[in-house]
């Protein structure tokens, strides 16, 4: 071939590898089926469930989701790549997103970022060796009135000073949001199968133990 090309004929998923989706995760995905007319429509909830359970959605997870929903794996990557907040590569359990926009910058966001890098021992777009934290920056977290701010998973931390970083990292609850996100997602009541045995998606730990 005279052109340099990316070879898409190569397998990225080992067909013999053990499944990455546990039966509990699969059952939770299936519990969404009655809510929609087609199984394909469950794709977005399924991606959320898998990302909550394993932190990211790997190639193999995509193939397995496609299997559960009876769609082509290309449909899964079509959707997952449209949304920027789905992770397709391995990341730490908690993702720290530091704002690098103008308000946070003038209020000392850069110093917070430097402190985080020193404490965690990693650079941007890296993950700590113990797999606990990943570090990224983003343009704006919509918290300019509380600058500088940072996000740990889905929890926003406001007015962070470099001196607070150590305490923040030590807090085991630093990514917990006190309020449930929606009844539909966290407490499915009208469907029996979801309640029996499977915890809510925010209780990732419980689900792992199950």
């Amino acid at each position: 071939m005279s052109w340099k090309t990316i070879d898409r004929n190569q397998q990225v998923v080992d067909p013999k590898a053990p499944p990455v989706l546990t039966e509990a995760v699969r059952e939770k995905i299936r519990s969404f089926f009655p809510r929609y007319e087609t199984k394909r429509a469950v794709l977005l909830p399924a991606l959320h469930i898998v990302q909550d359970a394993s932190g990211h959605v790997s190639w193999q997870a995509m193939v397995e989701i496609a299997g559960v929903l009876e769609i082509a794996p290309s449909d899964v990557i079509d959707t997952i790549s449209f949304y920027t907040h789905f992770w397709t590569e391995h990341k730490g359990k908690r993702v720290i997103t530091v704002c690098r926009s103008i308000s946070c910058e003038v209020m000392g966001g850069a110093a917070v970022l430097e402190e985080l890098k020193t404490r965690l021992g990693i650079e941007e777009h890296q993950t700590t060796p113990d797999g606990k934290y990943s570090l990224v920056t983003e343009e704006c977290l919509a918290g300019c009135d509380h600058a500088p701010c940072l996000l740990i998973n889905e929890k926003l931390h406001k007015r962070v000073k470099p001196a607070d970083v150590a305490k923040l990292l030590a807090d085991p609850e630093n990514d917990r949001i006190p309020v449930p996100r929606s009844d539909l997602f966290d407490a499915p009541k009208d469907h029996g199968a979801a309640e029996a045995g499977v915890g809510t998606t925010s209780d990732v730990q419980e689900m792992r133990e199950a």
Partner: protein
Amino acid sequence: MPKITIDNKEVECRAGIPVLQAALEAGWDVPHYCYHPGLSIVASCRLCLMEMMMPDPKTKEMVWSPKLAPSCQTPVRDGLVVRFDSDRVRHNQDICMEFFLLNHPLDCPVCDQAGECYLQDYSYKFGRPYSRMMDQKLVNPKKDIGPRTLLYQDRCVMCSRCVRFTDEISGTNELCLVNRGSRTEIDVFPGKPLDNPLQGNVVDICPVGSLLDKDFLFKRRVWELTGTPSVCPTCATGCSIRIDHADNTIYRLKPRHNPKVNQWWICDEGRFNFKYVQDAKRIAAPLVRRGSETSCPDWNDLPQIIRFRLEEHVREKGDQTVAAVFSPFMACEEAWLLARFIRSVAPQATLVLGPIPMVGEDQRFPVGTTNGDAKFTILREKCPNRRGVGLVLTSLGGPSLEFEPFVEQCKKGAFSAAWIVGGYPTPWVSKDTAKIAEGFEFLIVQDIFENELMAGAAIILPACAWTEREGSFMNAAGILQPFDRAITPPEGAKRDGQFLFDMAGYSGLYMGDRVRAMMAADIPGFAEAYVPPPEPPFAH
């Protein structure tokens, strides 16, 4: 039929079609990328926008609507008034073309699509000759998305025709759109490449040079190719195709629109089944054996030699010992001419339809559909003209046999002279069939390639592939479709039709439609051949 007004001209159109299709059918050149009549409508390219008359909400007076409307998504209805010939429409086409060409690499000199590219055509006709883009162009990787297809993402205009094709026609769903906005790309899931029996069509429907056929890649500039309308001989579906050739060499086969048979599509099996035509192993000269002597006579002498020796045989052994095997790859006209000749020498000769190659099962698309809903079917009967040849043989009456009983009869010594026509692209003489060659005193074998029967043959004749012949095939649905010859036979060979025309005692040039007219006098089934209506000039 609804009547609509386009650019002050009243146009009568088919009911239920979009305005764009009506305009194209009436001869307008409306630029469009994403619209394809065989696929669902997404109205994403925005090139076909038009102005439409609508009632003013306050005065109820009919005025041009303030917004442009996509003509591909607006169905025709009686009394609709639209216009494409307006400054606002032209301005939209201009800015859309600028947008499409923003990141385009302008590599037409090395692009296979150049010459049949709708980026070139529309840029020339509706765009502007310069670019205002000052920033670095986005560069995307080239992708090897399947065993037969390459994706050159930089040239893509994101019409999503290919994605919709794998979604709706093949039903295999390999292609998808990844990422978002200006970074959108066509892609497959890694390890699940574009590999289905219809995948070649995505190259055809790509309006630009983004999807490329590896087989045709860098082979020939398209403006050097001559397109000859033909019919695919690979299975009994009989899809309409176009043979693109130059310098007596076939470079590619493309589908032609045929509303009764294949719509806009052909399968890969048919698309790439032309390589055998250019095989160096083809027989190119006739051979005559008499005892231990062999000679290569002139084509002009052959009819007399064959007639003389066959008549001699009939005098000695009687006409019931003569048989002729007709290949299902023969055109109806050729079968008729050969049958006429055989029956003129031996009126009680047995006419036999050759073996019908059957491979696997019928394949229906989209995958998983049953007979009624299928949008495309690949039949297991891998020959084009079983019904046509069969109709010739049954219409002529007299003794005839199926191939299997014929082989059995041969083993019992029922026949001592035969004319056997092959013409199969793959070896077709089984071990069992090869045994019958010994039983003949006078055997004529006509085939493209050497076969096992030829060892005992008195006369060996080169046959031609369908690209070199002219005639008609009758497909599985009984539709008779004529095809033209595209290239000349290999040097030394002669077109089957012309030779059989001479054999049957006619003089002059063999022409398919002329012979069909003669046949129609005996067999009314050949009175009318179906030629699909041409596509509108600016549709694609």
